[in-house]
């Protein structure tokens, strides 16, 4: 998720940023209310973690503005005040959750996950990207109208990529968390699990590329336009992109193995 932290206490803001980044989220931090609204307009975050006591514009005012202009952003309020009335007021103003300080990071993570679950219930059942269509209810994927048989893991992996609609890179940490439910920090932990040592993400990305690549070749001539591919963004992660018919034809005479490598090197291919 893209998360915007609005916290004027620099130590707490820094720590929250670190913790959520380790959890695979894209995180930005601002320290006052006006900056919060500017960043909300620019980033369109999926979640805002909002402290109430802020300089320049109070957290309650920010909350009201968010409700008016950025309803698609879920807001989790942090407050150091014990009064029940304040928590009720925040929820009535549109906050999705309220957490009282001091809080445990475990509790904050659990509440974020609960918010993610609630958000996903309201997402579209069918995801579309380029020539790819994914029906999450029927667990069916088509490319240019042709069925693609995917395993459960491949389906989850493609779903994670398609949910970002090619607009945002999906990091390895995000994929490990979303697809393999790897715990926080497992990527940097010295005591890595054996599954991590097998480069599981890269292996499954390659499986998906092969299936998408085969289908793109098979559907040539049946449909014009672009074909969806998984691009590697060095040092960042993976991103869905599109490959033009002409690019595909240039590799049409190649063996499947060579063609797969063309897809694997998506970052070197020009995109529509």
């Amino acid at each position, binding site marked *: 998720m893209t998360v915007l932290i609005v916290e004027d*206490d620099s*130590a*707490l803001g820094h*720590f*929250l940023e*670190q*913790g959520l980044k*380790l959890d695979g989220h894209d995180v930005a931090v601002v320290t006052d209310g006006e900056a919060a609204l500017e960043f909300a307009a620019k980033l369109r975050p999926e979640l805002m973690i909002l402290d109430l*006591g802020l300089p320049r514009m109070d957290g309650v005012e920010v909350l009201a503005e968010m409700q008016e202009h950025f309803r698609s952003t879920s807001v989790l309020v942090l407050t*150091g*005040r*014990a009064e029940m009335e304040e928590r009720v007021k925040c929820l009535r103003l549109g906050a999705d959750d309220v957490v009282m*300080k*001091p*809080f*445990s*990071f*475990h509790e*904050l993570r659990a509440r974020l996950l609960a918010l993610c679950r609630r958000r996903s219930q309201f997402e579209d059942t069918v995801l579309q990207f380029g020539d790819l269509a994914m029906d999450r209810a029927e667990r069916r994927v088509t490319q240019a109208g042709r069925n693609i048989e995917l395993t459960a893991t491949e389906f989850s992996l493609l779903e994670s990529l398609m949910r970002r609609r090619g607009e945002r890179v999906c990091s390895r940490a995000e994929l490990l968390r979303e697809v393999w439910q790897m*715990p*926080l*920090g497992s990527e*940097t*932990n*010295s*005591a890595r699990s054996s599954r991590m040592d097998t480069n599981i993400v890269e292996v499954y990305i390659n499986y998906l590329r092969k299936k998408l690549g085969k289908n793109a070749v098979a559907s040539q001539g049946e449909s014009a336009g672009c074909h969806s591919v998984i691009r590697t963004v060095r040092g960042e992660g993976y991103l869905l992109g599109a490959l033009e018919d002409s690019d595909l034809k240039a590799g049409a005479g190649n063996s499947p193995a060579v063609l797969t490598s063309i897809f694997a090197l998506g970052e070197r291919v020009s995109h529509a």
Partner: protein
Amino acid sequence: MPDTEEFGGGSNRRQMKQLSAELHELCQPLTTLQCTLEMAALTDTHEAYREAMETGLAECRRMVALVESMREILHEAVREAEAETFEADQ
């Protein structure tokens, strides 16, 4: 939050408000301390433990200053309440 009457009536309202504000302030370093330590335990690296220790010490200093301030406010409230009781007895 206890009723102001428990602290000697209306004359201690100011101290109660100050205490409430200080208690609110205390929540900040306490949250940072708790979360930093939890994070270090989760990530389980030497660097994370070192950073947690540095952050923890800084946050402890903030908390000590706040507790000192709260203690002074409380002493002032107790002194005023005792003075009021003494005047009433006279």
